[in-house]
């Protein structure tokens, strides 16, 4: 932590951007830093408390955003800008190009937890709130969604290209020997291709973006080509087609749902924002259709909860979700009034 803060008084601290983010939003990644700093400099406790009070004391009355108004204006912008999303994409946009952007962006924040165990097992973990990108020993690339991990025997590569995945990942595989992804649900085998595997919450969802992919659960096998998706339904494969020219939405930081149980939506939000969501079982099986971006937690909560007639209140990294009008949580900050 920067020791410029040693010279700061309460008024100066209360104007520091990093301090405000911590004091206001209680962002977890700042909290640890500040607490460690305070432990080293206990004499600054008073200035910090005063500054926190200042930051919290100011309340600016704000009219809440009206979703209908937002949607109406977008309708006008959409009409005035003409082309649809699909047409607007340059046709030659290659998969690796957006992968490059995603990777560059990911690397900026990346605290990829990659380590090699004494027994030669390589482990890569993307913790909650972060994504990770990794190049395998054969040059193949893997992008891990938040809350996911892969492990593999490094010295076996490239003779045997095999790794174990938990969570969700997008692979771009170099040509060569069979490339095998094992998951708790089943396995995926390819030669050279790009594909997405999602195993969150017990699902097994494989989407092939280029080339061919073979998916296996016990004795049940399916072959997928570009634009095909296989979803394990518990007793057999369910096949669908999807738009393979766009990257998996999670990579661009946008999460889309179509009739998805809130249980799964909240689980993804917990991984993306590194928070804990506390919601009664009675609402978890309700289904949600919509989308949010991973850059703003408050907006994401709003976009999921508002159409479902739910209320969310946030206290640090714990979010309590209740049916609107249910008994309010005492003293929950960040809820305006």
């Amino acid at each position: 932590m920067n020791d410029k803060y040693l010279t700061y008084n309460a008024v100066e601290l209360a104007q520091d951007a990093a301090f405000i983010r911590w004091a206001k939003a209680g962002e977890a990644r700042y909290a640890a830093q500040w607490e460690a700093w305070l432990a080293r400099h206990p004499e600054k406790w008073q200035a910090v408390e005063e500054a926190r009070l200042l930051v919290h004391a100011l309340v600016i009355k704000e009219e809440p955003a009206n979703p209908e108004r937002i949607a109406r204006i977008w309708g006008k912008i959409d009409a005035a800008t003409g082309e649809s999303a699909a047409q607007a994409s340059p046709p030659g946009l290659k998969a690796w190009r957006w992968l490059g952007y995603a990777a560059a962006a990911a690397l900026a924040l990346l605290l990829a937890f990659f380590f090699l165990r004494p027994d030669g097992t390589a482990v890569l973990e993307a913790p909650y709130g972060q994504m990770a990108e990794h190049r395998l020993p054969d040059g193949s690339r893997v992008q891990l969604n938040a809350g996911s991990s892969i492990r593999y025997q490094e010295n076996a590569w490239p003779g045997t290209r095999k790794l174990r995945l938990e969570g969700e990942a997008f692979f771009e595989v170099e040509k060569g020997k069979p490339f095998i992804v094992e998951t708790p649900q089943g396995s995926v085998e390819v030669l050279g291709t790009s594909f997405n595997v999602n195993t969150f919450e017990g699902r097994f969802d494989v989407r092939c973006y280029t080339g061919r992919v073979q998916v296996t659960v016990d004795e049940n096998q399916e072959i997928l080509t570009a634009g095909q998706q296989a979803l394990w339904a518990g007793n057999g494969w369910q096949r669908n087609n999807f738009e393979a020219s766009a990257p998996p939405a999670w990579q661009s930081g946008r999460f889309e749902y179509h009739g998805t149980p809130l249980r799964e939506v909240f689980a993804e939000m917990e991984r993306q924002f590194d928070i804990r969501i506390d919601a009664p079982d009675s609402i978890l099986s309700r289904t949600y259709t919509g989308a949010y971006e991973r850059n703003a937690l408050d907006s994401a909560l709003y976009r999921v909860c508002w159409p479902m007639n739910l209320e969310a209140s946030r206290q640090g990294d714990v979010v309590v979700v209740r049916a609107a009008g249910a008994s309010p949580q005492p003293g929950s900050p960040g809820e305006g009034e």
Partner: protein
Amino acid sequence: MSEALLWSQLREGRKTALEALYRAHAPVLLQYGGKFSADRQLVEDCVQDLFVDLWQRRAQLSEVSSVQSYLLVAMRRRVVRQLGRRQKRETAEEPEEQQFDCEIAIDEQIAARELSKEQHLKLKEALQQLSPRQKEAIYLKYQLGMDYEDIGQAMDISYQSVRNLAHSALSRLRELLIRGWWLPPWIFFGFF
């Protein structure tokens, strides 16, 4: 992180990026614009024009350090220009500087815990006496989390002026807000 990605996708002509940016920022832009004018239609038109213009000029956009700051600066310019034009049209006079207005209050829970009635009243008065510029600086800083350089750019004043605006407002607030027992311990030892 994904803001930068969306911005580069916008520059490449992805309309999904335009929509994502709109949805992420429209609420704040509408609120900020509304602080200059109660005319909701005018504010909405400014947001609409801003994003249409962003799309049309996407190929010429450069990289930005903060998308939100970029949009807020652009929004402020639009609203102020529109209001100036209208004033000129209606009164045939040179427009005066546009006034930012928002209600800054003291959090009720903190007031109840930390302040006497008299102190609270004093604070309310002090907050009402803040100039429009001080209010705007505080709004951009605390409500929207902008840094002083971006605020200076938005308000078209120097970095140092923004700091002075905010610093004087906060010092006054601290003076009024912090009670006696917050004073450092050496004050008490001084008696012995």
